[in-house]
């Protein structure tokens, strides 16, 4: 795989390759380019998931037309597909390199620190993050609402779920819209904050799980968005990231072109 990437970079078929390199003991996203080919020896393929898709979008916004390679998997492809549907990246500029296709033995398990082992209080009052949509659906209605509210009220409003999301790119975010959610106050509007985000994940979420990993309060966000998107699948037969059309929930006209998010 490294030889293949090296030859692409050397021939100019690829201007840069976004992968991981170990820095100070941490696998850190790193941009490999023709200028530093020797660094490719240190390419790491089994790093935890980072929003590389967002980095790709930022780079392409700053320098349109550059040819990028990115280390990723099926989820990365779906995220980039969503971004290209919404005109955030041009699909011909990005090539996803899946280590599974080149060196499956190297990939191994993705190493993450946080393993979601729920404690007794969470089991009694909240929702086990490992449960599936059907298991939650099977709970009694009142109990289910109570459990979700328990999870939502833990929110510290860090906006981490929004910030790390590879398919969150709107210039004006509803979570900062004064008519919906007040910014600058610490207590989260429960459950509006989470439901607004859940509605916006409908037809967009590619189930990468980074929001839940980034959540300091361990709210089962992935489960919430899975539920939302099972409804989208059921009603519209639309599967996020696999379709080449915009989702059926675009309400602002025939074809919505969202403004590009400005780089700070």
């Amino acid at each position, binding site marked *: 795989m490294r030889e293949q990437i090296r030859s692409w970079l050397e021939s100019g078929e690829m201007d840069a390759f976004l992968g991981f390199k170990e*820095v100070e003991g941490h696998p850190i*996203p790193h*941009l490999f*380019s023709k200028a530093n080919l020797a660094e490719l020896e240190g390419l790491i393929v089994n790093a935890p998931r980072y929003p590389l898709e967002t980095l790709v979008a930022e780079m392409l916004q*700053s*320098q349109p037309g550059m040819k990028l390679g990115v280390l990723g998997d099926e989820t990365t492809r779906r995220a980039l597909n969503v971004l290209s549907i919404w005109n955030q990246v041009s699909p011909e500029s990005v090539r996803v390199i899946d280590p599974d296709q080149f060196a499956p033995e190297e990939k191994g398990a993705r190493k993450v620190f946080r393993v979601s082992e729920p404690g007794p209080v969470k089991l009694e009052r909240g929702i086990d993050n490992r449960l599936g949509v059907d298991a939650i659906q099977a709970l009694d209605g009142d109990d289910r609402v109570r459990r979700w509210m328990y999870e939502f009220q833990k929110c510290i409003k860090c906006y981490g779920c929004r910030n*790390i999301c590879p398919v969150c790119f709107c210039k004006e975010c509803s979570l900062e819209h004064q008519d919906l959610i007040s910014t600058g106050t610490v207590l989260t509007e429960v459950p509006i904050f989470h439901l607004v985000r859940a509605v916006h994940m409908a037809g967009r979420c590619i189930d990468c799980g980074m929001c839940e990993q980034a959540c300091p309060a361990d709210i089962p966000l992935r489960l919430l968005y899975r539920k939302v998107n099972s409804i989208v699948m059921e009603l519209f037969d639309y599967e996020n990231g696999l379709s080449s059309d915009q989702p059926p929930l675009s309400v602002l006209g025939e074809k919505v072109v969202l403004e590009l998010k400005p780089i700070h």
Partner: protein
Amino acid sequence: MEYKIIPSVCSYCGTGCGVLFKVMNGRLVGTLPNKTHPVNEGGLCIKGWNLHEYVNSFLRLTSPLVKVKGRFHKATWDEAIQVAADHFTSIVEKYGPDSVGVLVSAKMTNEENFLAQKFARAVIGTNNVDHCARL
């Protein structure tokens, strides 16, 4: 195109969460949590997520300001420290050392906190030392 991810530690509080700075063409454009950092394990609070904003903020103070006749004026460090020292001396002379208190920060290093309490006890002559975690 130059895009670097630089690991660092959040400068807001004493927790010390690991962050990654996104630097594009020499400009800090964003912050990410460090997922393999043992302190925060991939999470950040809202302040950590927005670390990059104060670095590029036009409101950021890049030099000391001295208040003269009710208005702030830019000054050099030597001038500013001299003004502060003169005022402290006159206050201590007039009201005694216990009229001064020193508040330190969880964000500073142990060594800097040690120096601050040394300054309070040995230079000013007061035991009025406290830190932000008790405010």
